[in-house]
């Protein structure tokens, strides 16, 4: 007869968080909506690579949107996890809601890790192919590469997706309402992204597309007077004058800070009162700093 | 107004009934015949009791075999509707509408059971709620009721219209002893003019209530007879001792701290009178 070792409870919340995190990560990675998101993003990515650019720089500009369906899926998977907190199960457990939420967030970070991996692989592939084209003549390049901070936008978006899912799942009584709210928030974020390209609203965009188009002169001006390092876009159907196509790692970096601030704010909404105050405050500050610094970076 | 298909109020016939979930045979080639009265279905968890009851309640279609309820074939949509007009079904742990009161919920079920005359329907609703002991709380929201009271709301819904066939899945769940006594009276009344099939884990209930008991395990019926006959299966096979007997089929500690053993008693063992529990354990534990 096998003798089992007596079951002894650990008194360390960190171990409980890790154990819960492993369970939640396992559930979220197997969630069918994640598979759907990965398939759609994969199809979108394949279509973007397969077909020639509609305009110079199309692939460079569109790339940050490609994982949009995955972000929706992450939010929905995390919402399901946090919605389970509304079911009173093991109310007598020594671990409180903060610890359980910590486990869920840790599980959500597994999805962030997945997105990070995808983004890293994509960046390596682009680098191996020699880069992407960007800009019109003069100044057009065929070797544009994403800065590290631009690549980090994807994991930052994934963290925001975790925060959004946590807030919606925990605070809305109906699971269906949470899923619909998340879809309604994410869908225009991904597909109306062009609406946030103006200089005044770029810092507030959720998905930041670079380059940012900045008007520099009227149609009649001579573009050679501008620095050779500038990427320019000539007048045409959509613009009356010359535009500078501004790309910046710093802009992307501060945008990532903004996203992480929003994520902290939303995560705070999902948590009980104690950690909520800290996270919401920190999130508001980070988001404000991120937005302000973006405005300062943009010429 | 449609002409009701003639039903045979007390008749229930099952032949070779089988239901599979993937590779698991939840109900395995079951045949039985009932002609009124009250039948108890005993069995361990996972025996297939709920699956069998769902088929008798026309909620689940079998994969093989034939079924005739009240003389009709439930595989025919028209007959199925007719059966349901004379059927009351209490599922296991049903979900109720928490914002409804018992009166509103049972009234809604009554409408769906085609009792459209408002006055008669409401009288019937009050009757069944009173019969299950919920007269005092019929205007309270269901979410404020205890689990036992909620169980009785669902039971009241099943009793609407005095159905000829009552299929009850663990109707005594959450009931206290006094409520169980009341349930026994209700079921006895139902069995007087129709057929009542109920599942339970409680052998004491079966002993008092059911002139006929079926023991089910592993999807099969292992015993079909009276409670007395089930008890007699264990006659001469029960003995008690200070320690558990390793040669016994089953052995467990009693409230007095001694061990009750079931199987072939050794020479000189102190034999005990068999109970219904002993007979059930002997029968249900022999599957395989």
């Amino acid at each position, binding site marked *: 007869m096998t003798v089992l070792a007596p079951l002894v409870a650990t008194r360390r919340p960190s171990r409980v968080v890790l154990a819960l995190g492993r369970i939640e990560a396992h559930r979220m990675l197997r969630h069918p909506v994640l598979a759907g998101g990965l398939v759609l993003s994969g199809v979108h990515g394949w279509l973007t690579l397969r077909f020639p650019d509609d305009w110079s720089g199309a692939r460079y500009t569109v790339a940050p949107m490609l994982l949009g369906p995955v972000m929706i899926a992450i939010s929905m998977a995390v919402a399901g996890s946090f919605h389970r907190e509304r079911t009173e199960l093991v109310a007598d457990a020594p671990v409180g809601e903060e610890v359980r939420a910590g486990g869920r967030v840790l599980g959500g970070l597994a999805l962030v890790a997945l997105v990070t991996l995808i983004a890293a692989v994509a960046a390596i592939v682009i680098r191996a192919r020699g880069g992407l084209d960007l800009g019109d003549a003069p100044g057009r390049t065929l070797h544009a590469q994403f800065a590290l901070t631009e690549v980090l936008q994807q994991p930052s978006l994934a963290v925001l997706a975790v925060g959004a899912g946590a807030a919606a799942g925990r605070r809305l009584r109906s699971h269906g309402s949470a899923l*619909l709210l998340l879809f309604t928030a994410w869908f225009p974020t991904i597909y109306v992204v062009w609406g946030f390209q103006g200089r005044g609203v770029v810092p507030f965009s959720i998905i930041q597309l670079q380059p940012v188009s900045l008007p520099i002169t009227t149609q009649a001006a001579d573009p050679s007077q501008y620095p050779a390092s500038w990427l320019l876009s000539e007048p045409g159907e959509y613009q009356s004058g010359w535009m500078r196509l501004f790309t910046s790692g710093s802009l992307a970096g501060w945008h990532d800070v903004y996203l992480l601030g929003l994520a902290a704010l939303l995560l705070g909404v999902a948590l009980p009162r104690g950690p909520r105050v800290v996270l919401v405050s920190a999130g508001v500050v980070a988001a404000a700093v991120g937005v302000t610094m973006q405005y300062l970076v943009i010429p | 107004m449609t002409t009701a298909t003639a039903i045979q109020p007390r008749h229930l016939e099952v032949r070779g009934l089988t239901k599979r979930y993937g590779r698991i045979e939840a109900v395995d080639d079951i045949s039985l015949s009932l002609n009124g009265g009250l039948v108890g279905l005993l069995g361990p968890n996972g025996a297939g009791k709920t699956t069998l009851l769902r088929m008798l309640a026309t909620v689940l279609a079998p994969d093989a075999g034939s079924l005739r309820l009240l003389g009709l074939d439930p595989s025919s*949509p028209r007959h199925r509707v007719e059966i349901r007009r004379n059927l009351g079904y209490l599922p296991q742990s049903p979900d109720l509408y928490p914002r409804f009161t018992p009166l509103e919920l049972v009234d809604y079920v009554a409408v769906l059971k085609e009792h459209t005359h408002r006055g008669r329907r409401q009288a019937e609703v009050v009757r069944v709620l009173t019969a299950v002991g919920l007269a005092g709380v019929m205007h309270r929201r269901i979410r404020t009721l205890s689990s036992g009271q909620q169980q009785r709301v669902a039971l009241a819904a099943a009793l609407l219209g005095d159905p000829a066939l009552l299929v009850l899945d663990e109707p005594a769940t959450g009931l206290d002893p006094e409520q169980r006594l009341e349930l026994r009276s209700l079921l006895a009344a139902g069995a007087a003019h129709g057929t009542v099939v109920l599942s339970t884990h409680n052998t004491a209930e079966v002993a008092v209530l059911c002139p006929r008991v079926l023991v089910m395990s592993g999807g099969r019926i292992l015993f079909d007879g009276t409670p007395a006959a089930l008890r007699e299966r264990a006659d001469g096979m029960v003995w008690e001792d200070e320690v558990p007997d390793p040669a016994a089929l089953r052995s467990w500690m009693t409230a007095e701290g001694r061990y009750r053993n079931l199987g072939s008693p050794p020479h000189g063992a102190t034999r005990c009178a068999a109970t219904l529990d002993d007979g059930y354990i002997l029968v249900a534990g022999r599957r395989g």
Partner: protein
Amino acid sequence: MTAAPALVLAGATWPAARAVTWAPVIVADGALVLVAALTRRAPEDGTMPALACATTAAACVFALHDRGEVLLAAVPTGPMRRRLHRLSIVVAVAAPAWLLMRAVMPGIRGVGVLPVLALMTAGVAAAVWAPSPAVGGAPALPLLWVTADSVVSGSLGPAGDVLGWWRAEPWIVLVSALLAILAGRHR
């Protein structure tokens, strides 16, 4: 004595309406109005109509979930009849809400009811035919379909065209879904 189905459903309308989960419909419509307000200056490119149709259709399919389904499994008023009854109640409320949204949201003013109906009936058909564990995923069908259409956006040849049928040929989707629902009427 049996009662006419119409009489039964008429008597069941008010309790059925109370039993419907309205929260997804309310949340979806409220969120749509908010998003429309925030994106009112964005160029019109079909995103808002797609979002409005998908979300409204999914909310209606969500609202079909009946927590009393198990309790009511053996009543003579069958599951399909009860499902369609609930759907008609939801549509009766959602339709005026849709028309109101069209009035206040410029982005969807040109969208008729057919695309929403097409997506909604497709979701209902999925709920009828999906195996038991997957039934809860039926409301996801309108969302998934519209997202896939936005991703593919006319590429992928005929397959891409089919993805766009909910808006380009909603009659085909609507009729196909209704036929599927009819074929599953005894489920």
